[in-house]
Protein backbone atom coordinates (compact mmCIF):
# COMPACT_ATOMS: atom_id res chain seq x y z
CA UNK A 1 0.00 0.00 0.00
CA UNK A 2 1.27 3.47 -0.83
CA UNK A 3 1.28 5.61 2.34
CA UNK A 4 -0.53 8.94 2.33
CA UNK A 5 1.82 10.81 4.67
CA UNK A 6 4.49 11.20 1.98
CA UNK A 7 4.85 13.04 -1.33
CA UNK A 8 5.56 11.41 -4.67
CA UNK A 9 7.71 12.34 -7.64
CA UNK A 10 6.88 11.35 -11.22
CA UNK A 11 10.20 9.44 -11.47
CA UNK A 12 8.88 7.11 -8.76
CA UNK A 13 10.69 8.49 -5.74
CA UNK A 14 9.02 9.57 -2.48
CA UNK A 15 9.77 12.20 0.16
CA UNK A 16 8.89 12.30 3.85
CA UNK A 17 9.36 15.81 5.23
CA UNK A 18 10.33 16.49 8.82
CA UNK A 19 11.26 20.14 9.29
CA UNK A 20 14.12 20.97 6.92
CA UNK A 21 14.92 17.30 6.42
CA UNK A 22 13.49 15.14 3.65
CA UNK A 23 13.83 11.36 3.72
CA UNK A 24 13.90 9.93 0.20
CA UNK A 25 13.22 6.47 -1.16
CA UNK A 26 11.76 4.75 -4.20
CA UNK A 27 8.15 3.75 -4.54
CA UNK A 28 6.73 0.26 -4.42
CA UNK A 29 6.00 0.53 -8.14
CA UNK A 30 9.68 1.35 -8.79
CA UNK A 31 11.00 -1.58 -6.78
CA UNK A 32 8.58 -3.92 -8.57
CA UNK A 33 9.74 -2.64 -11.95
CA UNK A 34 13.40 -3.00 -11.01
CA UNK A 35 13.13 -6.51 -9.67
CA UNK A 36 15.71 -7.79 -7.19
CA UNK A 37 17.92 -4.90 -6.16
CA UNK A 38 21.56 -5.98 -5.80
CA UNK A 39 23.40 -2.73 -5.17
CA UNK A 40 22.77 0.89 -4.29
CA UNK A 41 25.55 3.35 -5.06
CA UNK A 42 24.91 5.49 -2.00
CA UNK A 43 25.92 9.15 -2.25
CA UNK A 44 28.36 10.49 0.31
CA UNK A 45 27.29 12.83 3.07
CA UNK A 46 27.36 16.51 2.05
CA UNK A 47 26.89 15.71 -1.63
CA UNK A 48 24.78 18.42 -3.23
CA UNK A 49 21.75 17.30 -5.19
CA UNK A 50 19.30 19.12 -7.42
CA UNK A 51 15.62 18.39 -7.73
CA UNK A 52 14.77 16.30 -10.80
CA UNK A 53 18.36 15.16 -11.27
CA UNK A 54 20.19 11.96 -10.39
CA UNK A 55 20.65 11.26 -6.71
CA UNK A 56 22.28 7.85 -7.07
CA UNK A 57 22.17 4.67 -9.11
CA UNK A 58 20.51 1.40 -8.28
CA UNK A 59 21.53 -1.92 -9.77
CA UNK A 60 18.98 -4.66 -9.99
CA UNK A 61 19.18 -8.01 -11.69
CA UNK A 62 17.34 -6.39 -14.60
CA UNK A 63 18.91 -2.97 -15.02
CA UNK A 64 21.01 -0.14 -13.70
CA UNK A 65 18.73 2.83 -13.06
CA UNK A 66 19.07 6.30 -11.64
CA UNK A 67 17.11 7.47 -8.62
CA UNK A 68 15.91 11.00 -9.28
CA UNK A 69 15.86 13.36 -6.33
CA UNK A 70 12.45 15.03 -5.78
CA UNK A 71 14.03 17.96 -3.90
CA UNK A 72 17.24 20.01 -3.83
CA UNK A 73 19.69 20.12 -0.94
CA UNK A 74 22.65 18.31 0.56
CA UNK A 75 22.86 14.73 1.71
CA UNK A 76 22.60 14.69 5.49
CA UNK A 77 22.65 10.93 5.96
CA UNK A 78 22.71 7.83 3.78
CA UNK A 79 21.16 4.51 4.74
CA UNK A 80 24.28 2.41 5.31
CA UNK A 81 22.19 -0.71 5.88
CA UNK A 82 21.61 -0.79 2.12
CA UNK A 83 25.33 -1.31 1.48
CA UNK A 84 25.18 -4.88 2.70
CA UNK A 85 21.46 -5.54 2.33
CA UNK A 86 20.10 -3.70 -0.72
CA UNK A 87 17.17 -6.13 -0.80
CA UNK A 88 15.60 -4.08 2.01
CA UNK A 89 14.52 -1.69 -0.74
CA UNK A 90 12.42 -4.46 -2.25
CA UNK A 91 11.06 -5.62 1.08
CA UNK A 92 10.25 -2.31 2.71
CA UNK A 93 10.51 0.55 0.19
CA UNK A 94 8.63 3.06 2.37
CA UNK A 95 10.29 2.13 5.65
CA UNK A 96 13.72 0.58 6.25
CA UNK A 97 14.45 0.83 2.53
CA UNK A 98 14.87 4.63 2.63
CA UNK A 99 17.95 5.83 0.75
CA UNK A 100 19.01 9.22 2.09
CA UNK A 101 17.97 12.11 4.28
CA UNK A 102 18.48 15.44 2.55
CA UNK A 103 18.72 18.86 4.16
CA UNK A 104 16.49 20.81 1.82
CA UNK A 105 17.66 24.09 0.30
CA UNK A 106 14.19 24.99 -1.02
CA UNK A 107 11.40 23.32 0.97
CA UNK A 108 8.81 24.91 -1.33
CA UNK A 109 9.76 22.30 -3.97
CA UNK A 110 7.72 19.82 -1.96
CA UNK A 111 4.57 21.67 -3.04
CA UNK A 112 5.20 20.57 -6.65
CA UNK A 113 5.10 16.89 -5.69
CA UNK A 114 2.12 14.56 -5.89
CA UNK A 115 -0.09 13.26 -3.12
CA UNK A 116 -0.75 9.54 -2.89
CA UNK A 117 -4.01 9.85 -4.81
CA UNK A 118 -2.40 11.95 -7.50
CA UNK A 119 0.49 9.48 -7.82
CA UNK A 120 -1.83 6.49 -8.11
CA UNK A 121 -3.85 8.30 -10.77
CA UNK A 122 -0.57 9.11 -12.55
CA UNK A 123 0.46 5.44 -12.45
CA UNK A 124 -2.88 4.43 -13.91
CA UNK A 125 -2.55 6.94 -16.73
CA UNK A 126 1.00 5.76 -17.44
CA UNK A 127 -0.23 2.19 -17.64
CA UNK A 128 -3.00 3.10 -20.06
CA UNK A 129 -0.69 4.97 -22.41
Amino acid at each position, binding site marked *: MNPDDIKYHREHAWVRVEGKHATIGITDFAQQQLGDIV*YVDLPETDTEVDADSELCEI*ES*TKATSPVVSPVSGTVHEANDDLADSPEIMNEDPYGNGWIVVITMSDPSEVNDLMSRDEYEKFLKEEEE*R
Partner: protein
Amino acid sequence: MPTRLTIIGAGPGGYVAAIRAAQRGAQVTVVEESEVGGTCLNWGCIPTKTLIASTEALEQARNAAEFGIELNGEVRYNLDRIRERKDRVVETQIKGIRALFKSRGITLIHGKGSFLSEDVVRSVQKDGTTQDIRSDRIIIATGSRPARMAAFPFDGRTVMTSDDAVQLKSVPQHLLIIGAGVIGCEFAFIYRSLGSTVTLVEIMPRALSTEDEDLSGIIERELKKAKVTLITSASVVTIGTADEGVMTASLSNGREVKADCVLVSIGRSLNTENLRLEDAGLAAGKRGEIPVNEKMETNIPGIYAVGDVTGRMMLAHVASHQGIVAADNALGGDMRMDYASVPAAIFTRPEIGSVGIREQQAREQGIAVKTGRFPYRALGKAHTTGEIAGLFKVIADAVTDRVLGVHICGARASDLIHEGALAIRMGATAQQLGDMVHAHPTFAEGIGEAAEDVLGMAIHVPGERRE
Protein backbone atom coordinates in the same frame (compact mmCIF):
# COMPACT_ATOMS: atom_id res chain seq x y z
CA MET B 1 77.43 -21.53 -41.41
CA PRO B 2 74.18 -20.86 -39.60
CA THR B 3 73.46 -17.29 -38.53
CA ARG B 4 74.65 -16.66 -34.98
CA LEU B 5 71.83 -14.88 -33.19
CA THR B 6 72.16 -13.61 -29.63
CA ILE B 7 69.23 -12.50 -27.52
CA ILE B 8 69.63 -10.50 -24.34
CA GLY B 9 66.76 -11.37 -22.02
CA ALA B 10 64.59 -14.51 -21.85
CA GLY B 11 61.23 -12.95 -21.04
CA PRO B 12 58.17 -13.38 -23.27
CA GLY B 13 59.89 -11.29 -25.96
CA GLY B 14 63.29 -12.97 -25.84
CA TYR B 15 62.35 -16.61 -25.34
CA VAL B 16 59.75 -16.58 -28.12
CA ALA B 17 62.24 -14.88 -30.45
CA ALA B 18 64.78 -17.59 -29.55
CA ILE B 19 62.42 -20.40 -30.48
CA ARG B 20 61.35 -18.76 -33.74
CA ALA B 21 64.99 -18.10 -34.65
CA ALA B 22 65.88 -21.73 -33.93
CA GLN B 23 62.94 -22.82 -36.11
CA ARG B 24 64.48 -20.69 -38.85
CA GLY B 25 67.79 -22.50 -38.49
CA ALA B 26 69.82 -19.99 -36.50
CA GLN B 27 72.41 -20.85 -33.90
CA VAL B 28 70.77 -19.16 -30.92
CA THR B 29 72.31 -17.97 -27.65
CA VAL B 30 70.17 -16.39 -24.94
CA VAL B 31 71.75 -14.37 -22.12
CA GLU B 32 69.49 -14.09 -19.09
CA GLU B 33 70.41 -12.52 -15.79
CA SER B 34 67.61 -14.10 -13.77
CA GLU B 35 65.17 -16.85 -14.73
CA VAL B 36 63.60 -17.68 -18.09
CA GLY B 37 60.11 -16.27 -18.53
CA GLY B 38 61.00 -12.76 -17.39
CA THR B 39 58.62 -10.54 -15.48
CA CYS B 40 55.58 -12.21 -17.01
CA LEU B 41 56.34 -15.66 -15.66
CA ASN B 42 58.25 -14.85 -12.49
CA TRP B 43 56.61 -11.71 -11.05
CA GLY B 44 53.77 -10.74 -13.36
CA CYS B 45 51.08 -12.37 -15.46
CA ILE B 46 51.38 -15.98 -14.35
CA PRO B 47 51.90 -15.66 -10.57
CA THR B 48 49.25 -12.94 -10.23
CA LYS B 49 46.71 -14.95 -12.20
CA THR B 50 47.47 -17.96 -10.03
CA LEU B 51 46.80 -15.84 -6.93
CA ILE B 52 43.60 -14.56 -8.54
CA ALA B 53 42.51 -18.14 -9.18
CA SER B 54 42.90 -18.80 -5.44
CA THR B 55 40.94 -15.69 -4.47
CA GLU B 56 38.22 -16.58 -6.97
CA ALA B 57 37.92 -20.03 -5.41
CA LEU B 58 37.70 -18.29 -2.05
CA GLU B 59 34.96 -15.92 -3.22
CA GLN B 60 33.03 -18.83 -4.74
CA ALA B 61 33.21 -20.68 -1.46
CA ARG B 62 32.02 -17.58 0.37
CA ASN B 63 29.08 -17.27 -2.03
CA ALA B 64 28.33 -20.99 -2.10
CA ALA B 65 24.99 -20.58 -0.32
CA GLU B 66 23.73 -18.45 -3.22
CA PHE B 67 24.14 -21.52 -5.44
CA GLY B 68 22.46 -23.82 -2.96
CA ILE B 69 25.70 -25.29 -1.70
CA GLU B 70 26.05 -25.75 2.04
CA LEU B 71 29.55 -25.72 3.45
CA ASN B 72 30.08 -26.78 7.02
CA GLY B 73 32.16 -24.41 9.04
CA GLU B 74 34.02 -21.24 8.24
CA VAL B 75 35.59 -20.71 4.84
CA ARG B 76 39.29 -20.12 5.42
CA TYR B 77 42.41 -19.91 3.33
CA ASN B 78 45.96 -21.05 3.97
CA LEU B 79 48.47 -18.48 2.80
CA ASP B 80 51.31 -21.00 2.62
CA ARG B 81 49.28 -23.32 0.40
CA ILE B 82 48.27 -20.45 -1.89
CA ARG B 83 51.90 -19.37 -2.20
CA GLU B 84 53.09 -22.94 -2.78
CA ARG B 85 50.56 -23.44 -5.54
CA LYS B 86 51.70 -20.23 -7.19
CA ASP B 87 55.36 -21.30 -6.96
CA ARG B 88 54.51 -24.70 -8.41
CA VAL B 89 52.69 -23.21 -11.39
CA VAL B 90 55.59 -20.84 -12.09
CA GLU B 91 58.12 -23.67 -11.72
CA THR B 92 56.21 -25.84 -14.20
CA GLN B 93 56.19 -23.06 -16.77
CA ILE B 94 59.91 -22.36 -16.27
CA LYS B 95 60.69 -26.02 -16.82
CA GLY B 96 58.53 -25.90 -19.94
CA ILE B 97 60.54 -23.06 -21.48
CA ARG B 98 63.84 -24.69 -20.53
CA ALA B 99 62.69 -27.94 -22.17
CA LEU B 100 61.68 -26.07 -25.32
CA PHE B 101 65.11 -24.42 -25.42
CA LYS B 102 66.82 -27.77 -25.01
CA SER B 103 64.74 -29.45 -27.70
CA ARG B 104 65.60 -26.64 -30.12
CA GLY B 105 69.29 -26.57 -29.30
CA ILE B 106 69.16 -23.06 -27.86
CA THR B 107 72.09 -22.15 -25.58
CA LEU B 108 71.05 -20.42 -22.34
CA ILE B 109 73.73 -18.46 -20.51
CA HIS B 110 73.10 -17.14 -17.02
CA GLY B 111 74.64 -13.72 -16.97
CA LYS B 112 74.10 -10.02 -17.39
CA GLY B 113 74.27 -9.12 -21.06
CA SER B 114 75.61 -5.87 -22.50
CA PHE B 115 77.19 -4.61 -25.72
CA LEU B 116 80.92 -4.64 -26.31
CA SER B 117 80.43 -3.55 -29.90
CA GLU B 118 77.73 -3.81 -32.51
CA ASP B 119 78.44 -7.51 -32.99
CA VAL B 120 79.69 -8.71 -29.62
CA VAL B 121 77.53 -9.29 -26.54
CA ARG B 122 79.35 -9.66 -23.23
CA SER B 123 77.79 -11.81 -20.54
CA VAL B 124 78.96 -11.17 -17.00
CA GLN B 125 78.26 -14.13 -14.76
CA LYS B 126 77.46 -13.92 -11.05
CA ASP B 127 81.03 -14.98 -10.14
CA GLY B 128 82.44 -12.14 -12.22
CA THR B 129 83.67 -14.24 -15.12
CA THR B 130 82.80 -12.96 -18.56
CA GLN B 131 81.96 -14.53 -21.84
CA ASP B 132 81.99 -12.62 -25.12
CA ILE B 133 79.55 -13.80 -27.74
CA ARG B 134 80.26 -12.83 -31.32
CA SER B 135 76.95 -12.46 -33.14
CA ASP B 136 75.63 -11.89 -36.64
CA ARG B 137 72.32 -10.65 -35.28
CA ILE B 138 71.32 -9.38 -31.84
CA ILE B 139 67.88 -8.94 -30.28
CA ILE B 140 67.48 -6.78 -27.17
CA ALA B 141 64.68 -8.03 -24.93
CA THR B 142 65.63 -6.90 -21.44
CA GLY B 143 62.19 -5.73 -20.39
CA SER B 144 61.29 -3.51 -17.47
CA ARG B 145 61.01 -3.41 -13.69
CA PRO B 146 58.66 -1.66 -11.26
CA ALA B 147 59.33 2.08 -11.10
CA ARG B 148 60.47 3.34 -7.72
CA MET B 149 60.39 6.79 -6.24
CA ALA B 150 63.29 7.88 -4.08
CA ALA B 151 60.85 9.53 -1.67
CA PHE B 152 59.45 6.17 -0.58
CA PRO B 153 61.44 3.95 1.80
CA PHE B 154 61.28 0.62 -0.07
CA ASP B 155 62.15 -2.38 2.06
CA GLY B 156 60.29 -5.09 0.16
CA ARG B 157 58.05 -5.82 3.13
CA THR B 158 56.24 -2.73 4.40
CA VAL B 159 56.89 -0.53 1.38
CA MET B 160 56.94 -2.74 -1.66
CA THR B 161 56.64 -3.03 -5.43
CA SER B 162 54.55 -5.55 -7.34
CA ASP B 163 57.62 -7.85 -7.39
CA ASP B 164 57.25 -8.10 -3.60
CA ALA B 165 53.45 -8.05 -3.46
CA VAL B 166 53.23 -11.13 -5.66
CA GLN B 167 55.31 -13.09 -3.14
CA LEU B 168 52.37 -12.80 -0.72
CA LYS B 169 54.56 -13.01 2.37
CA SER B 170 51.75 -11.78 4.58
CA VAL B 171 48.33 -10.21 4.37
CA PRO B 172 48.48 -6.68 5.78
CA GLN B 173 45.67 -5.32 7.87
CA HIS B 174 45.58 -2.09 5.93
CA LEU B 175 47.18 -1.96 2.51
CA LEU B 176 47.72 1.36 0.76
CA ILE B 177 48.18 0.99 -2.98
CA ILE B 178 49.69 3.96 -4.81
CA GLY B 179 48.51 3.93 -8.41
CA ALA B 180 45.15 2.56 -9.58
CA GLY B 181 46.41 1.31 -12.91
CA VAL B 182 46.27 -2.29 -14.06
CA ILE B 183 48.67 -3.62 -11.41
CA GLY B 184 47.23 -1.55 -8.56
CA CYS B 185 43.65 -2.58 -9.33
CA GLU B 186 44.47 -6.28 -9.74
CA PHE B 187 46.28 -6.33 -6.40
CA ALA B 188 43.47 -4.34 -4.74
CA PHE B 189 41.03 -7.17 -5.52
CA ILE B 190 43.53 -9.89 -4.53
CA TYR B 191 44.41 -8.44 -1.13
CA ARG B 192 40.81 -7.38 -0.45
CA SER B 193 39.64 -10.97 -0.95
CA LEU B 194 42.30 -12.11 1.50
CA GLY B 195 40.94 -9.70 4.09
CA SER B 196 43.05 -6.54 3.87
CA THR B 197 41.41 -3.16 4.14
CA VAL B 198 42.56 -1.54 0.91
CA THR B 199 42.95 2.12 -0.04
CA LEU B 200 43.85 2.98 -3.63
CA VAL B 201 45.30 6.40 -4.40
CA GLU B 202 45.37 7.50 -8.02
CA ILE B 203 46.82 10.70 -9.45
CA MET B 204 44.45 10.67 -12.45
CA PRO B 205 40.74 11.48 -12.08
CA ARG B 206 39.71 7.82 -12.47
CA ALA B 207 40.91 4.28 -11.93
CA LEU B 208 42.34 2.52 -15.00
CA SER B 209 42.65 5.90 -16.71
CA THR B 210 43.96 4.43 -19.98
CA GLU B 211 40.82 2.31 -20.43
CA ASP B 212 37.42 3.23 -21.82
CA GLU B 213 35.61 5.61 -19.43
CA ASP B 214 32.56 3.33 -19.07
CA LEU B 215 34.81 0.40 -18.16
CA SER B 216 36.68 2.48 -15.56
CA GLY B 217 33.30 3.39 -14.11
CA ILE B 218 32.28 -0.25 -13.76
CA ILE B 219 35.55 -1.18 -12.03
CA GLU B 220 35.25 1.83 -9.71
CA ARG B 221 31.74 0.63 -8.80
CA GLU B 222 32.99 -2.93 -8.23
CA LEU B 223 35.85 -1.64 -6.06
CA LYS B 224 33.25 0.21 -4.03
CA LYS B 225 31.14 -2.93 -3.73
CA ALA B 226 34.23 -4.79 -2.52
CA LYS B 227 34.70 -1.96 0.04
CA VAL B 228 37.97 -0.78 -1.42
CA THR B 229 38.45 2.96 -0.86
CA LEU B 230 39.48 4.75 -4.05
CA ILE B 231 40.89 8.28 -3.82
CA THR B 232 41.39 9.85 -7.25
CA SER B 233 43.10 13.06 -8.42
CA ALA B 234 45.53 12.74 -5.54
CA SER B 235 49.08 11.59 -5.00
CA VAL B 236 51.03 10.39 -1.99
CA VAL B 237 53.54 13.06 -0.99
CA THR B 238 55.30 11.34 1.88
CA ILE B 239 55.14 8.09 3.77
CA GLY B 240 55.95 8.61 7.44
CA THR B 241 58.05 6.14 9.41
CA ALA B 242 56.17 3.34 11.08
CA ASP B 243 54.82 3.92 14.55
CA GLU B 244 54.06 0.54 16.11
CA GLY B 245 53.87 -0.89 12.62
CA VAL B 246 51.50 1.74 11.25
CA MET B 247 52.67 4.25 8.64
CA THR B 248 50.88 7.46 7.79
CA ALA B 249 50.86 8.56 4.18
CA SER B 250 50.22 12.23 3.45
CA LEU B 251 48.25 12.95 0.31
CA SER B 252 48.43 15.96 -2.01
CA ASN B 253 44.80 16.76 -1.17
CA GLY B 254 45.60 17.08 2.54
CA ARG B 255 44.16 13.72 3.53
CA GLU B 256 46.10 11.13 5.50
CA VAL B 257 45.93 7.39 5.06
CA LYS B 258 47.14 4.95 7.69
CA ALA B 259 48.53 1.62 6.52
CA ASP B 260 50.78 -1.13 7.75
CA CYS B 261 51.86 -1.90 4.18
CA VAL B 262 52.27 0.20 1.04
CA LEU B 263 52.35 -1.12 -2.52
CA VAL B 264 53.80 1.33 -5.03
CA SER B 265 52.50 0.59 -8.53
CA ILE B 266 53.15 3.79 -10.44
CA GLY B 267 54.50 2.38 -13.67
CA ARG B 268 57.58 0.59 -14.94
CA SER B 269 61.17 1.55 -15.69
CA LEU B 270 62.95 0.15 -18.73
CA ASN B 271 66.00 -2.09 -18.32
CA THR B 272 68.29 -0.40 -20.82
CA GLU B 273 70.67 1.70 -18.70
CA ASN B 274 73.23 -1.08 -18.14
CA LEU B 275 73.31 -2.38 -21.71
CA ARG B 276 76.14 -0.07 -22.87
CA LEU B 277 73.97 0.82 -25.85
CA GLU B 278 76.46 3.53 -26.83
CA ASP B 279 79.16 0.91 -27.43
CA ALA B 280 77.02 -0.50 -30.22
CA GLY B 281 76.04 2.95 -31.49
CA LEU B 282 72.42 2.41 -30.45
CA ALA B 283 70.06 5.32 -29.90
CA ALA B 284 67.83 5.58 -26.85
CA GLY B 285 64.90 7.86 -26.03
CA LYS B 286 64.18 9.93 -22.93
CA ARG B 287 62.81 7.05 -20.88
CA GLY B 288 65.61 4.77 -22.06
CA GLU B 289 63.39 3.23 -24.73
CA ILE B 290 65.04 1.89 -27.86
CA PRO B 291 63.34 3.23 -31.00
CA VAL B 292 62.43 0.56 -33.53
CA ASN B 293 60.54 0.51 -36.80
CA GLU B 294 57.65 -1.83 -37.58
CA LYS B 295 60.19 -4.54 -38.47
CA MET B 296 61.66 -4.18 -34.96
CA GLU B 297 64.93 -2.87 -36.40
CA THR B 298 66.94 -0.39 -34.34
CA ASN B 299 69.14 2.32 -35.86
CA ILE B 300 71.98 -0.23 -36.14
CA PRO B 301 71.58 -2.84 -38.91
CA GLY B 302 71.44 -6.36 -37.49
CA ILE B 303 70.33 -5.23 -34.03
CA TYR B 304 66.66 -5.55 -33.08
CA ALA B 305 64.70 -4.67 -29.95
CA VAL B 306 61.43 -6.18 -28.70
CA GLY B 307 59.14 -5.93 -25.70
CA ASP B 308 58.93 -3.27 -23.02
CA VAL B 309 62.29 -1.72 -24.02
CA THR B 310 60.70 -0.53 -27.26
CA GLY B 311 58.41 1.71 -25.20
CA ARG B 312 55.32 0.56 -27.11
CA MET B 313 52.41 -1.40 -25.59
CA MET B 314 53.93 -2.99 -22.50
CA LEU B 315 52.19 -6.34 -22.77
CA ALA B 316 53.66 -9.84 -22.71
CA HIS B 317 51.87 -10.91 -25.88
CA VAL B 318 53.05 -7.81 -27.73
CA ALA B 319 56.63 -8.63 -26.69
CA SER B 320 56.20 -12.21 -27.91
CA HIS B 321 54.83 -11.16 -31.26
CA GLN B 322 57.51 -8.51 -31.65
CA GLY B 323 59.97 -11.32 -30.88
CA ILE B 324 58.58 -13.42 -33.72
CA VAL B 325 58.72 -10.44 -36.09
CA ALA B 326 62.30 -9.59 -35.07
CA ALA B 327 63.55 -13.20 -35.30
CA ASP B 328 61.94 -13.68 -38.69
CA ASN B 329 63.37 -10.45 -40.06
CA ALA B 330 66.79 -11.17 -38.54
CA LEU B 331 66.85 -14.34 -40.61
CA GLY B 332 65.80 -12.92 -43.93
CA GLY B 333 62.06 -12.59 -43.42
CA ASP B 334 59.88 -9.56 -44.04
CA MET B 335 57.36 -9.30 -41.21
CA ARG B 336 55.80 -6.17 -39.79
CA MET B 337 54.22 -5.44 -36.42
CA ASP B 338 50.57 -4.34 -36.45
CA TYR B 339 49.31 -2.86 -33.21
CA ALA B 340 45.74 -2.03 -34.31
CA SER B 341 44.26 -5.37 -33.35
CA VAL B 342 46.26 -6.14 -30.20
CA PRO B 343 43.91 -7.04 -27.36
CA ALA B 344 44.66 -6.20 -23.74
CA ALA B 345 43.38 -8.03 -20.68
CA ILE B 346 43.04 -6.82 -17.11
CA PHE B 347 42.27 -9.33 -14.40
CA THR B 348 40.21 -7.23 -12.07
CA ARG B 349 36.94 -8.59 -10.68
CA PRO B 350 35.27 -8.61 -13.15
CA GLU B 351 37.83 -8.73 -15.94
CA ILE B 352 38.43 -6.23 -18.72
CA GLY B 353 39.20 -7.06 -22.32
CA SER B 354 39.83 -4.29 -24.79
CA VAL B 355 41.02 -3.89 -28.35
CA GLY B 356 41.22 -0.99 -30.75
CA ILE B 357 40.02 2.54 -30.41
CA ARG B 358 38.25 3.93 -27.35
CA GLU B 359 35.25 6.24 -27.65
CA GLN B 360 37.00 9.26 -26.15
CA GLN B 361 40.06 8.53 -28.30
CA ALA B 362 37.85 8.63 -31.40
CA ARG B 363 36.45 11.98 -30.26
CA GLU B 364 39.94 13.37 -29.71
CA GLN B 365 41.08 12.16 -33.12
CA GLY B 366 37.96 13.51 -34.81
CA ILE B 367 36.83 10.11 -36.06
CA ALA B 368 33.06 9.84 -36.38
CA VAL B 369 31.99 6.65 -34.66
CA LYS B 370 28.82 4.90 -33.60
CA THR B 371 28.79 2.94 -30.37
CA GLY B 372 26.76 -0.12 -29.48
CA ARG B 373 26.32 -1.12 -25.86
CA PHE B 374 24.92 -4.20 -24.19
CA PRO B 375 24.81 -4.92 -20.45
CA TYR B 376 25.86 -8.27 -19.00
CA ARG B 377 22.72 -8.33 -16.89
CA ALA B 378 20.63 -8.73 -20.03
CA LEU B 379 22.32 -12.07 -20.77
CA GLY B 380 20.71 -15.29 -19.62
CA LYS B 381 24.14 -16.86 -19.12
CA ALA B 382 25.17 -14.07 -16.75
CA HIS B 383 22.23 -14.90 -14.52
CA THR B 384 23.05 -18.61 -14.50
CA THR B 385 26.52 -17.94 -13.09
CA GLY B 386 25.51 -14.89 -11.07
CA GLU B 387 27.99 -12.63 -12.89
CA ILE B 388 25.65 -9.88 -14.00
CA ALA B 389 27.89 -6.83 -13.60
CA GLY B 390 29.45 -5.59 -16.80
CA LEU B 391 29.14 -4.09 -20.25
CA PHE B 392 29.97 -4.84 -23.86
CA LYS B 393 30.84 -1.95 -26.17
CA VAL B 394 31.38 -2.12 -29.90
CA ILE B 395 32.69 1.00 -31.62
CA ALA B 396 32.26 1.24 -35.37
CA ASP B 397 33.19 3.82 -37.99
CA ALA B 398 30.09 5.96 -38.53
CA VAL B 399 30.54 5.89 -42.32
CA THR B 400 31.94 2.46 -43.20
CA ASP B 401 30.50 0.55 -40.18
CA ARG B 402 33.89 -1.14 -39.75
CA VAL B 403 34.62 -2.26 -36.20
CA LEU B 404 37.32 0.01 -34.75
CA GLY B 405 37.16 -0.96 -31.09
CA VAL B 406 35.64 -3.50 -28.73
CA HIS B 407 35.68 -2.99 -24.97
CA ILE B 408 34.32 -5.48 -22.50
CA CYS B 409 34.15 -5.38 -18.73
CA GLY B 410 32.61 -8.46 -17.18
CA ALA B 411 33.04 -12.17 -16.62
CA ARG B 412 35.51 -13.81 -19.01
CA ALA B 413 36.19 -10.57 -20.85
CA SER B 414 39.85 -11.53 -21.28
CA ASP B 415 38.83 -14.51 -23.43
CA LEU B 416 35.84 -12.90 -25.13
CA ILE B 417 37.84 -9.96 -26.46
CA HIS B 418 39.48 -12.04 -29.19
CA GLU B 419 36.32 -12.03 -31.27
CA GLY B 420 36.67 -8.26 -31.33
CA ALA B 421 40.37 -8.51 -32.19
CA LEU B 422 39.58 -10.81 -35.11
CA ALA B 423 36.82 -8.50 -36.33
CA ILE B 424 39.23 -5.55 -36.38
CA ARG B 425 42.00 -7.63 -37.95
CA MET B 426 39.70 -8.84 -40.74
CA GLY B 427 38.10 -5.46 -41.30
CA ALA B 428 34.63 -6.73 -40.37
CA THR B 429 31.68 -4.38 -40.02
CA ALA B 430 29.48 -4.16 -36.94
CA GLN B 431 26.66 -5.50 -39.09
CA GLN B 432 28.70 -8.60 -39.95
CA LEU B 433 29.62 -9.08 -36.30
CA GLY B 434 25.96 -8.82 -35.31
CA ASP B 435 24.84 -11.10 -38.15
CA MET B 436 27.16 -13.86 -36.98
CA VAL B 437 25.25 -16.42 -34.95
CA HIS B 438 26.47 -16.60 -31.36
CA ALA B 439 25.81 -19.75 -29.36
CA HIS B 440 23.24 -19.61 -26.59
CA PRO B 441 23.61 -19.45 -23.65
CA THR B 442 27.06 -17.88 -23.67
CA PHE B 443 28.66 -14.62 -22.64
CA ALA B 444 29.74 -14.14 -26.24
CA GLU B 445 26.14 -13.32 -27.17
CA GLY B 446 26.83 -9.93 -25.63
CA ILE B 447 29.28 -9.08 -28.40
CA GLY B 448 26.68 -9.86 -31.06
CA GLU B 449 24.05 -7.79 -29.26
CA ALA B 450 26.42 -4.85 -28.77
CA ALA B 451 27.28 -5.01 -32.47
CA GLU B 452 23.59 -4.95 -33.33
CA ASP B 453 23.10 -2.06 -30.94
CA VAL B 454 25.44 0.03 -33.13
CA LEU B 455 22.37 0.36 -35.37
CA GLY B 456 19.93 0.34 -32.45
CA MET B 457 18.83 -3.20 -33.21
CA ALA B 458 19.86 -5.19 -30.12
CA ILE B 459 17.12 -7.65 -29.21
CA HIS B 460 17.33 -7.95 -25.45
CA VAL B 461 17.08 -4.29 -24.49
CA PRO B 462 13.87 -2.37 -23.84
CA GLY B 463 12.76 -0.22 -26.76
CA GLU B 464 11.78 3.41 -26.51
CA ARG B 465 8.07 3.62 -25.86
CA ARG B 466 6.14 4.82 -28.89
CA GLU B 467 4.08 7.90 -28.18
